[in-house]
């Protein structure tokens, strides 16, 4: 299956936008990705091995946090995973 890498993380994938991995689950695919590109690990996961809060991972059109199986969700070769850090901010110091 394909994993789409956002611009800032392509530094760690040799500039690749799309990486192909095999993996029967979302978790398996992410493990394979970070095994191939170890420097990605610290950018995606915190010290407990959980996805950083601002890193969104979408399986096709679905946020994996809201899938019933979450990271254990099964995947097929035709699926696409997209890693997309959040975009937000605001003007006022509160």
């Amino acid at each position, binding site marked *: 299956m394909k994993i789409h890498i956002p611009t800032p993380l392509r*530094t760690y994938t040799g500039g690749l936008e799309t990486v192909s991995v095999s993996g029967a689950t979302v978790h398996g695919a992410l493990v394979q990705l970070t095994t191939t590109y170890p420097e990605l690990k610290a950018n995606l996961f915190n010290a407990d091995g959980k996805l950083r809060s601002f890193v969104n991972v979408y399986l096709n059109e679905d946020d994996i946090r809201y899938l019933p199986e979450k990271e254990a969700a099964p995947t097929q070769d035709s699926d696409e995973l997209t890693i997309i850090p959040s975009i*937000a*901010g*605001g*003007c*006022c110091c509160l």
Partner: protein
Amino acid sequence: MLRLDYDLYQALRAHGEETYPNECCGVLLGKHQPGIGNHVQQIVRAGNTRTDSAHNRYHIAPVELIRIQRQARSQSLDIVGFYHSHPDHPAQWSQTDFAEAHWLGCSYVITSVEHGKAVLTNSFQLLGTSEEDKRFHDESIEINLAATTAQTQEGKA
């Protein structure tokens, strides 16, 4: 340095005037030129999902970002930055902007909109290698006026 054509520069400022007194937000598509900076070739308006507090917060839905990233890919462009407006606040990044900035290497463009008129537009590149050492760097904006001239002439013809 951030490079963009004058019409794109005007379009992102106009977006902030349209959404005033709320914040506008959008995505900059283009190419990163190593050693030079981000070159913007297209801007994509995004909807602000923070309807609860749209005057001082912005947030782009990840699904919308994915769609924009796909659009970029199909044109061989990359997401190189983002823009938003500061209604009646200076064109400087806030602590919230910094805390919520995660796209290292990308440009964050901020336009101050005072009483409905776009005033200053500044760009800040997010530098660093991780959340732990990230920082905003003031970058100059180089506006390509020639492209606009060409377009204006086309429009008149």
